[in-house]
């Protein structure tokens, strides 16, 4: 049986223009590896958005990284003060990975 190890999956939903900044914050928290997922639309406190907008300014992207609890917590701490002002959503969940060592 293949060995698996438990890690944290941290997901940050944010506006596309903010993504580069979030990648750098993640690097500060020691999270160098990540994946970006496209989103189609949604609805939140600031209303409905769709990605078929002329201005890409309000289209959103999902940042996803699998990492250790410490680093996930660190990134969460770094993002916390921005949640309200920047309309971010941060989700953290458990995930098992094969070859845990690479998901430092």
């Amino acid at each position: 049986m293949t060995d698996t190890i438990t890690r944290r999956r941290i997901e940050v939903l944010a506006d596309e223009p903010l993504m580069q900044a979030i990648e750098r914050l993640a690097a500060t928290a020691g999270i160098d590896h990540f994946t970006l997922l496209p989103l189609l639309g949604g609805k939140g406190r600031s209303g409905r958005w769709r990605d078929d907008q002329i201005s890409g300014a309000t289209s959103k992207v999902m940042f996803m990284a699998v990492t250790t609890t410490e680093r996930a917590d660190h990134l969460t701490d770094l993002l916390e003060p921005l949640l309200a002002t920047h309309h971010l959503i941060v989700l953290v969940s458990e995930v098992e990975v094969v070859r845990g060592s690479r998901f430092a």
Partner: protein
Amino acid sequence: MALDALLQPVVLFFLLGLLAAFVRSDLAVPEAVAKTIALYLMMSIGLRGGGEVADSGLTGAMLIAAGCGLLLSFLLPLPAFWLLQALGRLDRTNAAAVAAHYGSVSVVTFAAGSEVLRSIGMAPAGFMVAVLALMETPAILTGLLLAKGGRSDALAARGGLLHETFFNGSVVLLVGSFVIGMIAGEKGFAPIAPVFDDLFKGMLCLFLLDMGLVAARRLLDKRALTLRTVILAIALPIANGTVGVSLGILGGLDAGSAAALGILAGSASYIAVPAVMRLVLPEANPGLYLGMSLAVTFPFNLTLGIPYYAWVAQHLHKVVLP
């Protein structure tokens, strides 16, 4: 003339888009295509403007127009900022963000306006494309100063605000295409003219269909606008556009170029500026500034504003140079 302008396919497709969204039809132009048409429009505008400048050579009028454009983009946000707070009842941050949009410019308004001007024998000079490119950025800087007197946001600093502002995709493509148009000249442009000249108006139809859909959906989805902000979204382009035309005429530009300067001054950005604002003034409400610029000012300019600026330019020109 206004009615004529209104009955052009370009405008009719915009109205069709509005209508389709209002009856909640599922009509939609895929985002990838809309983005590409935006790139195409900028390439085409840049190439044709650069080609004309290559023909005409550098002139004094060019420098005057560039100076006027820079001035307008830097300064127009100031009265707007004040009006938006006083009459629009916006807070400092939102007023600054909206003001930046109205100081900057809309490429598609310029494109549609140039076609209208051309069709009534008032074709603007080729160098107005360079003015368009020059006017995109300064208003952003003024807006940021108004918002926070130079304080910088932790996240914005990381995100590379300066790059977003100066090496913004649309500025780079517009300037780059303009330079390529200058280098290529008429002979170099000929083989690519079937794409960048002949297809222009048709592509604009497709793009404006999408603009109509997006503008109307924005109005339906987000109720960020008040009566006061809607009125300002019509008053600001009228005021800014009149200032722009007047400055152009006083500076000695031909009526067509002055009208184009008015169109630029009267138009509001909805691509370049919002992207920067989400990064550096995230507290500002995108529903507000995109609602005003995209859903009110753009339709106003496309239908009534452009003919109005042209009319002002014609009459002022007669008055000043009788």
